[in-house]
C-alpha cells in the first residue's frame, strides 16, 4: 500500500519532468533553426498549447481519477499530507523547473485575485492583459516588456477554472480575495516570457 502511494506520489513529478523535457526539446529545436525565424507569438502559442494539454491530462487523468477512486487527493500542502499537487501548483512547479533549467523561457500563473501576492501581475502588461480577459477571454495578450536594459516578449493567455477543485479551493482559501468563482470562469492568466536578446 505504502509502495503504491509512493509510486503515485512520484508519478506527477515524473510527468512534470517529462513535460519539461519535451518543452525544452521543442524550444531547442526552434533555437537551433533561427534563419527564417519563428515569431515569438507562435513560440508562445506552442508552449501554451503544450502546457495546457499537460495540465489538462494531469487534472483529468491523474487528479480526478485518483480522487474519484479515493486513492489519493490533491491538496495545497501536498508535501505534508501525502497528497497530489493541485493542478495550478503542478503548473507553477513545472514552470519553476523550466526556469531552473536556464533556457530563458518562463511561465507562471497570475491573477487579479491571487491567494499569494507573488502571483499578482508584475507588470502593466500583465495587468492590462488580465483586465482585457473580462471582454476577450480567448485572445492572448502579447507585448514587449523591459527590465533595465533587457527586453522580453510576454504573451498572456486567459486561464479558466478547469475543474471543480480549482473553484472550490479559491472560493474557500482564507487568503483568497475573491470567493465567487464558478466552473469555467476566467480566474487569471498564464504568462509566458521569452527573452529577446
Amino acid at each position: 500500500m505504502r509502495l503504491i502511494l509512493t509510486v503515485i506520489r512520484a508519478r506527477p513529478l515524473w510527468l512534470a519532468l517529462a513535460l519539461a523535457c519535451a518543452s525544452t526539446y521543442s524550444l531547442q529545436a526552434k533555437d537551433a533553426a533561427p534563419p527564417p525565424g519563428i515569431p515569438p507569438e507562435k513560440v508562445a502559442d506552442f508552449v501554451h498549447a503544450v502546457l495546457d494539454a499537460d495540465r489538462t491530462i494531469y487534472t483529468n487523468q491523474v487528479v480526478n481519477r485518483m480522487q474519484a477512486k479515493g486513492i489519493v487527493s490533491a491538496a495545497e500542502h501536498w508535501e505534508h499530507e501525502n497528497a497530489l499537487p493541485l493542478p495550478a501548483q503542478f503548473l507553477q512547479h513545472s514552470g519553476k523547473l523550466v526556469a531552473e533549467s536556464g533556457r530563458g523561457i518562463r511561465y507562471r500563473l497570475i491573477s487579479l485575485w491571487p491567494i499569494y501576492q507573488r502571483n499578482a501581475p508584475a507588470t502593466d502588461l500583465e495587468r492590462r492583459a488580465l483586465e482585457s480577459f473580462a471582454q476577450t477571454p480567448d485572445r492572448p495578450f502579447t507585448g514587449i516588456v523591459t527590465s533595465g536594459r533587457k527586453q522580453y516578449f510576454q504573451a498572456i493567455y486567459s486561464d479558466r477554472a478547469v475543474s471543480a477543485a480549482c473553484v472550490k479551493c479559491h472560493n474557500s482559501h482564507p487568503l483568497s480575495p475573491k470567493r465567487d468563482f464558478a466552473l469555467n470562469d476566467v480566474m487569471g492568466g498564464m504568462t509566458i516570457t521569452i527573452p529577446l536578446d
Partner: protein
Amino acid sequence: MTSTARPFSSALGWGLKRKLIVSMLMVGVVPLLLGLSLAFLQGSKEIQVVSGESFQALATEAARKLDLLVAEEVARTSRIAVHPDIVRALEHRRDALHASDQNATLPTLVQQRAHWAARDPAAVKAITGNSTALLLQSFYAGSQNESDQLLPQVVRAATKKLFITDVQGNLFAALTTKPGFSHAEAAWWKGTFNKGVGQLYIEDLHFDEQADAYVFSISLPVMDSLRYEVVGVVHRVIDAKEFFSPSTHTIRFGKTGHVMLIDSRGMVLSCPILPTGVQLSGASLIPQVTVRQPGWVTADSDGHGGQGTAIIGFAPLPETSRATNGALENGAWHTFVWQSSDELFAPIRHLMMWMMILATVALTLLATLGYFAASRIVTPVRRLQEAARLIGRGELREPIQIHTGDELEELAVEFNRMNTQLEAAFAGLSTQVEEKTQEVQYLQKSTDQVLDAVPTPIIMIDQQGLVQYMNRASRDALQTQENSWSSRPLFDLLPLDDDHLQALRRDLRLVEENKPTALPSPDQEPALKEARDPLNQTLSQASRSARRELRIGSHLYHYEWFPLESRSGAGKRFGLVLRDTTDESRLQDQLIQAEKSGSLDVLTAGIGHELNNPLFGILGLGEAIQEEEDLARAKGYAQDIVGHGRKMAAIIRDFTGVAARESKSQRVPVDVTAQLEQALAIVQTSHDCLGLNVQKHYVTVSPVTALPDQLRLAFINVLTNAIQAMSGRGDLWLTTEEQDDLITITIRDNGPGIPKQHLGKVFDPFYTTKGQGEGSGLGLTVAQRLIKKFGGEIRLESPEGQGTTCVITLPADKAGVRKEEPCVSS
C-alpha cells in the same frame, strides 16, 4: 490447650486456622492486586492516549502559530525585496555588471572586498550609506513604513543582520558593517538565487560568530520588475531564541509541560528549558518526532535528558518547512510538546496510592475478621479432634457439646452416636474375649490334665528337635525333673543306643517329609493272631528297631511320630507317642503257652464228640450182628459198620482239614437240601431233641459245587450250635431259596440269641460261651472256613431276644446238574 493445638501446627504443618485466614486473605488480595494492576495499566494507557492526542493537537496549533510568525516575518522581508527603488537599483547593478568587461570588473570586486574587510570608510559608506542602505534603515527603523507595517520591537531586536547582495552575491547594501562582502558561495545565497529563478530560503539554525548567538536566516530573492529573474538577495539573520521565545515560552501547562521548536536535526530553536542550539538527547527520539505529519509517540526518552516513558506530541511547521534550506527535503522545523511523565502520571499514581492505602486497610480488616471467623470455625473442629482422640483411646466419657447450628454440630452428634455404639461394641467384645480366654485356659488345663492322665508318654518337639512338652507319663518314663526338660534336645533326653536313635530320626524325617512310613504300622496284630492260631503257631521275628520299638529301662515301647498343627510362620512341630508294650508282649507269651496246652483238651473233647455218634452206631450194629442170625442182614449191618468207620475216618480227616489242609477230594454238585436234611438227622440223633419243633420251607434249588461231607459238616456245626443254644427245646426254621445264582440257606432258632458284644467273635477259633468240654469253640470257625472254601458266605444275625438266624449263601452250579453220589445217612 497447648497440647491440643500442637498437632495442628507441628504435625500437619499449617493449621486449619492459618489456612483459613490465608485463604481469606488470598481471596481478597489476588483480585485486589489483579484489579489494581489492570486498572493501573489501563489507566496509564488511556492517559497516554489522551495526553498524546492533546499534545498532538497542541503541537499542531503551536506549529501553525509559529508558522504564521515566520510567514509574517517573510512577508515583512519581502516588502524590502519588492520595493521598486531597490529593484531598480539592483537592475541597474545587474546591467552594469553585465555590461562591464569581466576583466575590468574583477579587480574592482577584489578591491571592494579588501576595502570592506579593512573597514575602509569610503567602502563602508558606499555600502551602508547608499540609497538602498538608507531604504533598509528606514525599513528597519520604521520611518518609511505604514503604521501597520512597523517591525515589532521583538523582531527588531532579534534581527542581527540585514543586508542585500547583488546578482553576483556581493554585498550591495547593509545596515551595519558586520556582514561579510562576498556571499556567492554561501548555501543560503545559492539557494535563494536558485539559478536566477529565486526562491525563499530559510537557513537552519547555526551559530553566528558576529552576532554571538544561535541564529537562523531568511533570504528572499529580489526579482526584476518583470519577476523574470533574480537581481539580488535580501538576507536577514535573526536570533532564534529572541525571535521565538515570546511565542513558545508562553505556552506552558502544568509544571513541566511546554512547547519547543526543533529542526529536523534535533537542534533546539527555542525551548523554555533547554538552551537554543543544543541537540535533543536520545538519538532514537529524533527520527520519531521529525516526521512530516503531526502525531504523538510514546518514547523511551523525553529529549530533555530524562530516561523513561515520555509522551511527546509533535507537528511540522508546514510553510516554513517548505522553505527550510531551500526545500522540504533539506530540513524542516517541528514543534515538540512534552510534559514530564512524572507529572503526567501523577494523578493515576496518586489514585493508585490511595487505592493501595484503602486496600491495606481493607486487608487488615479482612485479616482481623478472618481471624475471628477462623477461630469460630476452628474451635469446634479442635474440640472434635480432641474428642476423636479420646474416642480412639476409648476415654471419651461425656458427650461432645457443640452448638454451632451447622454441619459441625451434626458432626458432633454423629461423633457422640459413634462413641456410644463403639462403647457398646467394645463392652460386648471384652466380655467375649474374657470368656474365650477363660475357655482357652480351661481347654489348655484340661488338655494338660488329659495328657497327664494318659499313661502313654507323649512328647512334643519343634523343628529343631527341642522338647516343647512332655506329659506326666513321659516325664516318669524318662525320669526327668519338672521343667528341666523344657527346650532341651529330645535325643539327648532319650537314653538310647545309636541304632535306635537313628531309627527314630529316620522315622521323624519321613513324617517331616510327609511320606508314608516304610512299614505297615499294625504289624504286631497279625503276629498275635498267628500266635493264637493253635494250628499255625509261627511267630514272625522282625527286628525290634524295624518294628519301631525301643527299650527304656525295663520298659519296651512302641513309638509313633505324628505331625502337629502349627501356627503359620512358626516352624513345624511333631509329637512322639510311646506305647508301653511290655505287659502286652508278656501276656501274649503267656497266652500262647496257655493255648498250646488248653487246645489239646478241647481238641480231644471235640474229636470225642464227633466220633461218638458213629462209634455208638458201630457199637449198636456190632451188638446187632452178634444177635443176628441172618447172614445177609448181618452183612448189611457189617456194611453199615464199615460206613460208620469210614465216616469216623472222614471225621478224623476233617479235623486235620481244619488246619487249612486242602482236601484232595473232588468237588461234585451237591444237593443242598439233602445235605441239610442229613445234617439235621445227625444232629437230632446226637442231641436230646424231644422238645424240638422243626419247620422246613424248602424249595427246589440248583446244586452247588462242594464236597458233600464237608458241606454237611458245616451244616451240622451250625445246627448243633442252634440246638445247643435252645437246649434242645424250641422252634427251628430251615429255609432254602435260590435267587440270582445264589442259594441261601437260613437256619433260625428262637433261642436266647447272641449278645451283641459276642456277635463279632463267634467265628473266632475257640471262642465259646459253653463250659469246658461242652464245645471246642471250633464249630462255627470250621463252618465258616468250609463255606468260604466253597465260595459262599456265612453270617449270624441275632436281634436281641429273638433267637439267632444263620444265613449261608452258596453259589449255584447250574451247569453241572448231576446226580450226586449215594451218601450214607444215619
